């Protein structure tokens, strides 16, 4: 078993929480893991990515090679496209469709969506809207994790444990809303993949 995942977004959008939960679930499932992330200057509103590698064999590189990612999982549509060179031929491209606009030359959203829809295996999901409808707009990242859960080959209950593990300190309510958000993302992806 091997899953190489590029997580993408803008600094502050919560991709590291996604990485932590998948990482927790992977370790609990007895798998090897490497996860490279970005700290420092780029975190200030810039593009950020994390390379998450899971395998039952030894993992060498901390970085995923170009043409090697089984999954691009992005919480922002333009950021998802930035990592296209990493995707394998049959890899899955899963992205939030709500743009994060903090630059003057942000492209036309419709054109972005067209570009995304032209990719062979894509799941485009308005995760901000789904999270908002659930009354927890901050759990957009968990909606995305839920959408990705179908492609991870990690038992879903291990991801649920991961959510309990990292949000447990914040109380039962926060855990519940994040679990709900993940479920909603999973349900959406099932229907729309």
């Amino acid at each position, binding site marked *: 078993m091997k899953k190489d995942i590029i997580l993408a977004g803008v600094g502050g959008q919560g991709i590291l929480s996604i990485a932590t939960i998948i990482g927790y679930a992977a370790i609990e499932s007895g798998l090897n893991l490497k996860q490279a992330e970005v*700290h*420092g200057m780029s975190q200030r509103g810039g593009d950020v990515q994390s390379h998450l590698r899971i395998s039952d064999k030894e993992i060498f590189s*901390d*970085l995923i090679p170009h043409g090697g990612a089984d999954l691009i999982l992005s919480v922002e549509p*333009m*950021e998802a*496209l*930035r990592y296209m060179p990493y995707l394998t031929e049959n890899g899955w491209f899963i992205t939030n469709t709500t743009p994060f606009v903090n630059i003057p030359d942000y492209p036309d959203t419709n054109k972005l969506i067209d570009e995304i829809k032209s990719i062979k295996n894509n799941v485009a999901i308005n995760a901000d809207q789904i999270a908002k409808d659930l009354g927890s707009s901050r759990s957009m990242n968990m909606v995305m994790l839920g959408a990705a859960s179908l492609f991870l080959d990690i038992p879903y209950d291990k991801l649920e444990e991961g959510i309990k593990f990292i949000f447990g300190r914040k109380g039962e309510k926060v855990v519940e809303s994040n679990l709900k958000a993940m479920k909603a993302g999973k349900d959406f992806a099932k229907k729309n993949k």
Partner: protein
Amino acid sequence: MKKLLLLGDEAIAQGALDAGISGAYGYPGTPSTEIVEYIQRNKEAIEKDIHRTWSANEKTALEETLGMSYAGKRVIVTMKHVGLNVAADPYMNSALTGANGGVIVAVADDPSMHSSQNEQDSRYYAKFALMPAFEPSNQQEAYEMPFLAFDISEKYHLPVLMRVTTRLSHSRAGVDRREILKENEKHLPKNPNQFMLLPAFARKKFKHLLAIQDDLVKESENSPFNKYTDGKDRSMGIIACGLAYNYLMENYDEGKCPYPVLKISQYPIPRKQVEKIISECDEILVLEEGMPLVEEMLKGFLKNQKIKGRLDGSLPRDGELNPQIVRKALKLPELPSLKIPQIVAGRPPALCVGCPHADTYKALKLLINKYGQGHVFSDIGCYTLGFLPPYQAINTCVDMGASISMAIGAADAGLFPAIATIGDSTFGHSGMTPLLDAVICKSNIVVIILDNDITAMTGMQESQVNGRIENICIGVGVEKEHIRVINPLPKNHEDNVKIIQEEINYNGVSVIIPRRPCIHVLKKRKK
């Protein structure tokens, strides 16, 4: 015991703790910061009361480290690569004083300059100082190396350097822990001259340092971290240093490389293994993360054509390595991959919405429009982003503290106004001494100390000068009436512009302190 999921930096910290350190010193700097941060929040470190407070800068941190070593304890000091430039004086001299309690100088390099103003390879410093160096290739080695590094440091009474790079510093993996060692008992150096570098002693110590070099090579030749793996195809041999080893193995199924491979993770370079691989293989490819140190030594001035790497174009001359760059150097076919769609725009980092620096720069911008571009010297921190649109408020960024010193030099040359912008933590690091120069010469400069209450860029570390800035300025000799504190908020914009203008008009040293906490500090404190 269950595996710990640790960043490379955290693995070094856990290894140092388990190898019995009594202190960790350092100054925050990406990608090294998480070493001390980990020790600061580690339960066992808190219980044992391991020293874990940030120092004012890397030089003081390294000297404090030497003091703890003098008293017999094991100690680690951490910094980023450019921090070692700041600490270079005590670092170079520590090769002569040596260590009493074991010393690890842990330095994180940032090839490709993700968050740095240059790229340097700290292994050159180890070679320069004639010190052993350790370069882990993965998180488990990062954890295990401090044990051996301290043993060698104490065996030879010599500090050792441990070098990591961004991708290992900031990548997580499972780590198995070893048996935990006790801290050293406090004990003074056996030789009372050990830390005395009067020339007569220093000469002897330098000869001693030269004399043990062969022993240090033998340590490398026998190191568990240096590994020779034979291969059937001897048309090429590969020397892979530290992290580069992973990028090599990534390109072969289950790491089965057909060529002989020498992995180097401990220096000085292991001579025996290098001689073997060079004599047995037709060509040698050297893979190094950072600069071509090993390659240059093997290639020599006469340019041995057999040695390939960054110097002959087999690999790029600058920047970090990755699996695809190494793949190309191995002459393997590229993996099929797509291009970035043209629609994707760049998204550079920017000051956060609500950042206090943004308000200060807006005020400053008005004055820049009046005097023209080219008057503002800046420094290292989040506020360096004030160079980018929409602010375009600063002109320089060189090294910690250079804003004030450069403003002085420019004012001496007749530039008016000459303005420095420097963060609170950077001021504590290296701003006080140039401010003293300015006071002595009555330089006509305006120093704007952007006080956001924290070391923000590196992720919210306490600033050493917190609550002390005005008193420091008074103590250094800045006139009280020309130390002005302002609150950088949109509603105060006009008042702030006026105050900056007044201090520009004053012929002498002025300090303006825009004071408002970083928005992330406020969020963090609310939690």
